[in-house]
């Protein structure tokens, strides 16, 4: 660069070398050139290497036949399906284990977090030991433990362990009653949808009424009645009028085998168990920190205003604790979703196992497979953090 010629003599006493703006531009330019060079070298090398290995790049492989089977599929899939369908199968399996895992981990985590704060010595100490042990053991080890040391040695199908209510456990997995839906079962779902919409509408109505007139309605009870009661009512009426809309096919213990029912593969059981137990340890700590973050003065002030302990919890403590709990809780959900990729270690057909494992090995399309898989996880986490930011901006304390 020819610098000296362009600088007007009176503009600055110091040399342009010391101008922060110029320096900033130079630094950024160097960074862009460096990153660009890195990308250029990597791309040219990759193109050369792929050409040498005779791998056609591009996403065309997604529509060719996969030729492998998957042992748990939520959508129709077989060996003649395409790689694109295999991707969908893996994605749905990941989402399934993530959703079920998040729900169960929340219950267990909240129970353990509250138990750690219990005034009951033995309850608090047991919860503390549970949390410390679970949090300090690698998840992979816990998964292997559940899969190989707990589920593998279970008896075979001939000697299945009955857990009551039509649940059986053996080394081929967990057998549960299979729900069978009759033609008019959609009415039950419709009733459920009506119940949910109705309870939301009622909650909005109740809040408005309370804000205007101070009159309170039993929101929780009404919502429960609407969400649970309405579908049950429809179910019962349909069962009396026509045939039972939703019936269950129970697994039956036969001489050599179990018949009927829904088989949940042991990989799914082990992965869900491992993820739920591991994440619950972290959620317990989040919950404990959240409850401790509400200072004692808050509940004392509520008592002084004449609120009993029930309304104090409901109206004062829990809303403030939830504000602290929800952001880290969401990141635990994200962690659980990302950790479900450890499925590859025990052979559960999740996105990583199916797409980054089998498909990548069969096609050799490393860049495409890695990019797609990473993009999926990235999308999930970006959507979640966007939602979290909206929540935070709505719930954040408004100060001065």
């Amino acid at each position, binding site marked *: 660069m020819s610098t000296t010629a362009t600088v007007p003599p009176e503009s600055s006493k110091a040399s342009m070398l010391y101008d922060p703006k110029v320096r900033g531009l130079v630094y950024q330019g160097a960074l862009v050139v460096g990153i660009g060079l890195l990308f250029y070298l990597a791309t040219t090398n990759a193109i050369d*290497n792929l050409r040498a290995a005779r791998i056609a790049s591009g996403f065309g492989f997604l529509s060719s036949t996969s030729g492998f089977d998957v042992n748990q599929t939520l959508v129709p899939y077989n060996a003649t399906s395409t790689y694109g369908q295999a991707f969908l199968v893996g994605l749905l399996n990941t989402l399934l284990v993530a959703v079920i895992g998040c729900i169960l981990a929340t219950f267990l985590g909240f129970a353990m977090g509250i138990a750690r704060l219990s005034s009951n010595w033995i309850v608090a100490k047991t919860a503390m030991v549970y949390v410390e042990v679970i949090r300090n053991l690698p998840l992979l080890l816990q998964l292997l433990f559940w899969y190989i040391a707990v589920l593998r040695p279970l008896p075979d199908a001939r000697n299945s362990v009955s857990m009551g209510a039509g649940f059986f456990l053996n080394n081929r997995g967990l057998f549960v009653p299979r729900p069978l839906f009759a033609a008019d079962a959609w009415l039950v779902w419709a009733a459920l949808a009506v119940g949910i919409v109705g309870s939301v509408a009622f909650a909005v109505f109740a809040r408005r009424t309370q804000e205007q007139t101070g009159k309170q309605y039993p929101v929780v009870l009404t919502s429960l009645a609407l969400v649970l009661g309405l579908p049950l009512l429809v179910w019962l009426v349909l069962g009396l009028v026509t045939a039972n809309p939703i019936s269950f096919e129970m697994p039956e213990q036969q001489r050599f085998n179990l018949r009927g029912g829904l088989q949940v593969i042991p990989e799914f059981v082990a992965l869900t168990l491992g993820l739920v137990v591991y994440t619950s340890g972290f959620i317990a700590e989040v919950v404990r920190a959240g409850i401790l973050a509400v200072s004692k003065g808050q509940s004392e002030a509520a008592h002084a205003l004449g609120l009993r302990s029930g309304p104090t919890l409901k109206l004062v403590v829990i809303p403030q604790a939830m504000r602290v709990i929800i952001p880290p809780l969401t990141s635990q959900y994200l962690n659980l979703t990302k950790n479900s990729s450890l499925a590859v270690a025990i052979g559960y057909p999740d996105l990583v196992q199916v797409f980054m494992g089998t498909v990548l090995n069969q096609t050799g399309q490393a860049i495409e497979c890695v990019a797609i898989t990473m993009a999926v996880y990235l999308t999930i986490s970006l959507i979640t953090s966007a939602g979290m930011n909206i929540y935070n901006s709505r719930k954040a304390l408004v100060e001065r």
Partner: protein
Amino acid sequence: MAVQSLSFIRTAPVEATPPPTAVRGPVGWVRENLFSSPLNIALTLLVAFLLWIALPPFLRFMIFDAVWTGSDRNACREDVIGRPVGACWAFVWDRLSYFVYGSYPPAERWRVDTFFALLTVGAVWMLWLKAPRRGLGAAYFFIVFPVLSFLLLTGSERIGLPEVPTAFWGGILVTIIVSVVGIVLSLPFGVLLALGRRSRLPVVRLASVTFIEVVRGVPLITVLIMANTMLPLFLPAGMSVDRLLRPLVGVALFASAYMAEVIRGGLQAVPKGQYEGAMSLGLGYWRMMYFIVLPQALRIVIPGIVNTFIGLFKDTTLVSIVGLLDLVRTIEASRVDPVWAAPTVSMTGYAFAGLFYFVFCYGMSRYSLMVERRLAAGQRR
């Protein structure tokens, strides 16, 4: 007068009677802490029942029914020794050298031991807050120790040590190497990324934010698989990357992103006056960071760094999935060995690995709590 003489005025205070036995001593403690309300009575009984179901089998397995000595599977088989068999510690004892060193040549294992000793010196120097010359310790840990360990472990005929290919390394050695490389590389990179994220230069900020968010948004296993399959693609043909090095690159990238977020927290916690004070003294950006801001920021986030390291240490188990012979993989390889084929061997292997990880992770988390309390001492009321 008469009234006064009638009234009774005590001249010495009444001796306090001891509290009733129901509120003091063991009985009082039990009533207070275990049976204070009907709900608590029920909870206590429930938990006691659960412990009564779970604890005795656990202790029987780990200690009372365990087999401590033996040289092959027969020592740990119920039908051979004629009693219920718990953990087969004989198996762990027999395979211990494999779990620690992998297939590192036995004649050269003193080098691994020396590496562990060097690491201990560095770790104690860094973690002991009152250690003398901690600046020197940092130089040792981040520069001298890695170079020395590399020379020591790989060896070279030129320095008189026979070369040991990384394919022979394994067990706890690999676990420790992966986590140490992770921490040694992720701290400097994390500092740079954190500074980049808070930089005023938009391009630098964008590059840092993109890197951090992308890496934090994907699972480690995908980063490892990427390093394993794509790193060879990106290098010129004919140039191969060591099998141990590929996951190391992945782990280092991954850990840097998490470390950057921890350090950013520290940078944000340094009051603005410190930056302004440094600038008014005429310090440039790098000097301001090096002398004023980073020493304070890093001190604040020591607990966060240790917690990140605990996560990293647990995550090193994932390198076994991409084919490195770490502790988990050595256990997986040993437990299917026909010489030790006995029913409880798998469980014993996992119990051993669990103990190893628990001792390290729990110890580190205690340390980070201790530091946190010390750093908060100024704010304590």
